């Protein structure tokens, strides 16, 4: 189990993951929609980590603050709908459009809260970004990164992005060979067997309610 500290990456995974092109703070508009996926991952991660590193409130565990940061910088670069679909698996087809929307919102809230909290634990791991190999026609690209920390084997964190008209969007994060998204499928299927799609939605809501007294926003 010692190597589960692979999952240190869990920390950085979604939190640090992809995203915001620096120019496109809210209001700045869609300047960088054509930014290459590897550049996007690199810029957003280093941007976010730099902020975390210098922000004492965040490092002290100020969740509200880090959630704001993530929502502003990171979320625009994720496709939560596709992530949710992949997490739910084939039962996704049985969900009505309303249920699907609820699932997406609930799952997004869960991920954002969890990984924002994790981001407060970032210390000084060094991240190496590997150049992505992809052709002009590719619509799915895997951007590989490696998180190094002293005295431990480096951890691979890959971001899988798809090309959309609004730029590249992350839809999966793979830590040490494990998809953090599809790894939810076993649990989600379990919940759906027990209580249907609505049961899963309820469980997700209950979970995020636990995480903070305040109502979840998404």
């Amino acid at each position, binding site marked *: 189990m010692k190597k589960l500290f692979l999952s240190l990456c869990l920390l950085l995974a979604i939190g640090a993951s992809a995203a915001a092109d620096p120019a496109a703070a809210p209001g700045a508009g869609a300047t960088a929609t054509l930014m290459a996926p590897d550049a996007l991952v690199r810029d957003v991660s280093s941007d976010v980590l730099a902020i975390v590193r210098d922000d004492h409130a965040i490092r002290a565990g100020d969740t509200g603050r880090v959630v704001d940061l993530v929502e502003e910088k990171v979320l625009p670069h994720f496709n939560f709908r596709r992530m949710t679909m992949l997490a739910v698996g084939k039962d996704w087809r049985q969900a009505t459009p309303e249920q699907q929307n609820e699932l997406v919102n609930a799952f997004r809230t869960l991920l954002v809260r969890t990984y924002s909290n994790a981001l407060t634990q970032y210390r000084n791991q060094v991240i190496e970004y590997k150049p992505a190999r992809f052709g002009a026609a590719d619509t*799915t690209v895997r951007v590989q990164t490696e998180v190094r920390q002293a005295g431990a084997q480096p951890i691979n964190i890959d971001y899988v992005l798809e090309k959309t008209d609004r730029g590249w*969007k992350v839809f999966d994060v793979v830590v040490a060979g494990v998809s953090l998204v599809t790894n939810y499928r076993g649990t989600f299927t379990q919940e759906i067997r027990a209580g249907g799609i609505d049961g899963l939605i309820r469980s997700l809501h209950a979970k995020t309610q636990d995480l903070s007294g305040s109502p979840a926003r998404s």
Partner: protein
Amino acid sequence: MNNNSSPRHTTLAAIALCLMLAAGCTTRIANPDDPLERYNRAMFGFNETVDRAAIRPVAEAYDATMPPPVRTGVGNFFGNVGDVWNGVNNLLQGKFREGLSDGARFGLNSTLGILGVFDVASEFGLPKSDEDFGQTLGRWGVGEGAYFVVPFFGPRTVRDAAVLPIDMYGDNVWGVSDVAARNSLTALRLVHGRANLLGIDKTLEEGTLDKYSYARDFYLQQRRYRVHDGSPPQEYEDFNGGDGAISPPAPASGGAAATDADEFQQGSGGSGDDRPATR
């Protein structure tokens, strides 16, 4: 998450249990990887209790008090100890280059790195590897067996649990003969390892609906990935229209601007399978 804990006698208990349980204990087979789920869940709970009561508090104290450079040195020191066993296993798996690299790491770090406290080998471009005897067996074709939560040690498979004593012995080749010193080092290693996991178990706690099964699935996938030193790229299915496994996804369909609210319509008929393609 619980993890390694006081060695020696517990391993015996572990093996005994392992054999008992591999035989009996049939439960509803909800997950083919986890026929021992009922036992596993109970043991997972037990490990968590032990952890909460005894191990985590110490790890938290360690985390709060150790200055980062010292902690890095501790990590490097134990990492260096482990490099010998890494190397042996790489050689056993026929990965000679990696095995030699591990040997070189041990040589460099034990000398230039002052008993392993500084990881100079990494600076020289010799990356740390991560092998154990369970992986070696996997490489040799031994099946992993059922998922199995070992008392005190946490998630394993039956195969890896069975060789736990070998791994523990092999990983201790540094052979400190003084019992007190060895025990202190073992305790320090345990606490250090646990402290490294403090962030993760919070994440697991908060981010999953069922910590047990998320941890199980994560462990198994991660283990397979390590046995094979990587895995084929995952295929991503599309559960919208119907096509089962599409990989990679068809060109962003009809130029649909994929806002979060957009459906990923890639209509077409067919049925899908329900397992992540990495299985």
